[in-house]
């Protein structure tokens, strides 16, 4: 299989969130994931796009979101970069802690980590890159496993 990488530069709008989700769904489908995994991947990308548009770029029309997909023989690698102040991952409260259960926000990163195999957050002064990996191989292995 040939390696493929595509990237998109998107505005800091709500439409970008929906667009990112749709593109992720298409990439996951082409990569051969099943329906449940496609839903998880597209939702993780949606949540990452929400973070980039709202919290990173704060809807600033002068700031862009970069979305990239890379297919390798074993992985679907997705990165989303914003141009915000840089997310401090250490300050994200645990949404499962009893005192946070009834908070109305703060579950995005948790859901991304729940749905993807590897999640890396790379903050810098020029923005945050969120890199997510879903293993294609583990999916294929599980389908081929003996009954």
């Amino acid at each position, binding site marked *: 299989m040939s390696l493929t990488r595509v990237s998109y530069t998107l505005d800091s709008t*709500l439409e970008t*969130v929906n667009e990112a989700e749709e593109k992720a769904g298409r990439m996951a489908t082409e990569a051969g994931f099943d329906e449940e995994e496609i*839903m998880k991947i597209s*939702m993780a990308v*949606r*949540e990452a796009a*929400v973070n980039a548009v*709202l919290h990173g770029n704060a809807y600033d029309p002068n700031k862009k979101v970069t979305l990239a997909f890379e297919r390798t023989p074993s992985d679907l690698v997705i990165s989303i970069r914003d141009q915000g102040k840089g997310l401090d991952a250490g300050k994200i409260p645990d*949404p*499962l802690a009893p005192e946070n*259960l*009834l*908070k*109305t*926000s703060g*579950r*995005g990163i*948790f*859901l991304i980590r*729940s749905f993807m195999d590897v999640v890396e957050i790379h903050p810098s002064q020029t923005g945050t890159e969120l890199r997510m990996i879903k293993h294609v191989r583990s999916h294929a292995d599980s389908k081929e496993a003996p009954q």
Partner: protein
Amino acid sequence: MSMKSSTRQVDGVTIVDLSGRITLGEGSIILRDTVRDLLSKGQKKILLNLGDVNYIDSSGIGELVSAFTTAKNQGGELKLLNLTKKVHDLLQITKLYTVFDVKDDEAAAVKAFNK
């Protein structure tokens, strides 16, 4: 697909039939406005029928939590009905399944509200 909302009354309980996606933007706003409108009219027994809600994101989850706490703070009750598997699974992993009062039978759910 955006979200649609309609309400009906059954034995003093307002059932809100929701369909589509509860996500950041329109879906979350419709849910928020619907619940606030009901509470402002004194309709404080609210059953959210999520049977036709096929997708919800973290903003939608936050909106459900907000609806639940807003109703409770105003002396009301809000319960959830007919969760799809996707919504059920999301509430499970976010540990909210036990926070909400979740029902799968409409008649039993209506009876479960305090008289």
